């Protein structure tokens, strides 16, 4: 029973991170936008949904849609000043934007209702889980897994349709520089902004699913580190391949959680173990960079 619970938990995490990885892949893999602040969307989605459901007592579905809208809008807004930046500057700007979002929630307790020991650095607990009363404690995770998988599938279908459309062709051409698409009359800036908004929307979806699963969120869950875990998923899975993004999320999540079993075999402290998982992710990225530059699943050639 313990193992089944763990596996369901792992599958839910894979699903949520799969959504994040798909949306980052749209931005980085397909469009070449080095978004180092993807966690901002995740964070905004989590807090927006918490605000709507916990404070405003709205139904879960409103929280979910609200999370997507707010995170998508944020993606659009931060790309207004940054859309003309080159890749490395873009990375710095997005990294900073994500920290701004995190620090905002760290300081503004009122966002999640306020009250003693609530909001800000205390985080906020008691986030309601959707349809919790219809299930037992044992069956609920299975239901939630189904919700996550439906969201993951929807994300995959939508992003995949986009990347295979003429829209996808334009964003792929932006990856290698602005000149050519510009000369063909493509408004590169507008396409970048759309990609940021779409990626943000799905990042927000993942954040909402995360918040309502754990029932507790706090700003220190949304450190830049989270962004890089998602990056590892895209790099290891295979950039510009939507299946690769999901495979990457599965692989990284397996390794990320594998270290917890190490303590049964190696005498090692819990604290060290927690840091060790980051080492594992780092090693995986390096291995991918050296031996599989294109990731586990390579970018597919479009043949007509």
């Amino acid at each position: 029973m313990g193992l089944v619970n763990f596996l369901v938990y792992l599958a839910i995490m894979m699903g949520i991170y799969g959504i994040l990885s798909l949306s980052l892949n749209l931005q980085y893999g397909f469009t070449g936008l080095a978004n180092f602040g993807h966690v901002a969307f995740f964070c905004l989605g989590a807090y927006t949904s918490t605000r709507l459901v916990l404070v405003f007592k709205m139904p879960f579905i409103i929280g979910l849609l609200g999370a997507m809208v707010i995170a998508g809008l944020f993606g659009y807004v931060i790309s207004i000043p940054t859309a003309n930046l080159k890749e490395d500057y873009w990375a710095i700007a997005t990294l900073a934007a994500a920290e701004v979002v995190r620090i905002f929630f760290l300081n503004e307790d009122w966002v999640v209702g306020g009250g003693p020991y609530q909001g800000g650095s205390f985080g906020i607990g008691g986030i309601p889980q959707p349809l919790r009363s219809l299930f037992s404690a044992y069956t609920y995770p299975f239901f939630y897994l189904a919700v996550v998988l439906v969201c993951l599938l929807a994300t995959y279908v939508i992003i995949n349709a986009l990347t295979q459309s003429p829209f996808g062709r334009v964003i792929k051409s932006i990856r290698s520089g602005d000149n050519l698409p510009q000369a063909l009359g493509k408004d590169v800036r507008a396409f970048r902004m759309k990609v940021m908004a779409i990626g943000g929307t799905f990042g927000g979806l993942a954040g909402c699913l995360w918040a309502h699963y754990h029932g507790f969120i706090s700003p220190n869950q949304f450190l830049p580190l989270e962004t890089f875990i998602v990056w590892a998923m895209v790099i290891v899975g295979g950039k510009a391949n939507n299946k690769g993004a999901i495979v990457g999320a599965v692989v990284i999540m397996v390794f990320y959680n594998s270290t917890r079993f190490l303590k049964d075999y190696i005498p090692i402290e819990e604290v060290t173990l927690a840091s060790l998982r980051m080492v594992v992710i780092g090693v995986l990225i390096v291995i991918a960079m050296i031996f599989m530059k294109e990731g586990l699943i390579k970018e597919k050639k479009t043949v007509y």
Partner: protein
Amino acid sequence: MENSVILKIEHIYKNFGGILALNGVSFSVEANSITGLIGPNGSGKSTLFNVISGFYRKDSGEIYFRGEKIEGLEPCNIAMLGIGRTFQISEAPEKTTVLENLLLAPKRQCGEGVFNVFLNPLRIRREHEQHLNNALGILELIQLTDLKNEYAENLSGGQKKLLSLGRILMSEPQLLLLDEPTAGVNPTLVKDLMVAIRNLRDQKGITILLVEHNMRVISEICERVIVLDFGQKIAEGTPEEIQSNEAVLEAYLSGSSKRGLFREDT
């Protein structure tokens, strides 16, 4: 329409930190003509192309396209007006096939809109069929049919030139700025290319302005030739007039490049 002016350039100046790349260039291009733009290396030809297509901002001067002033527009807006251009060094986005490159180019594709992808799938399919048909025709023209599913980055330099010509044709420009379309292209193919360029004008009514170092191409397909030197127009006329123009000979012979204008090779 024989004598109507499609592109008019007046007193264009462009400065790069003290180097005057364009020093008051003025000329007009007639609609439905093939005009050559020549000049020694560094005379400002590519800079002029970049100014016309909006990639560089001019310091002063005016550009009129079909009688309308082009001012402060982004390159993509200028392309949408109907001015197509190719680059001296051909660009090909990574991991896109030759055919994808061609299908990228048509303007105002329904499927470029995010919501249309989900709301208008039938129209997108219809447009796709049509573009695919055009693309296959253009592949024949540029002789890349066999390579249609090859990644564009794997093509040779000459093939990339051909691809960039094909790609810009897919976008159906009214005025086409070609930056050295035959550089690096196999000599037998150059002949076909000249025929193709002439056909573009004769059959599709596209006005062509081309930068070219190959004088045979210039004298065979251009009706008018404009010569730049040190950012200024030094001569204009038919290819025959240009070949005997004193100022032109002077520019080529005394220029730092020292290259012959009328050699028969390449």
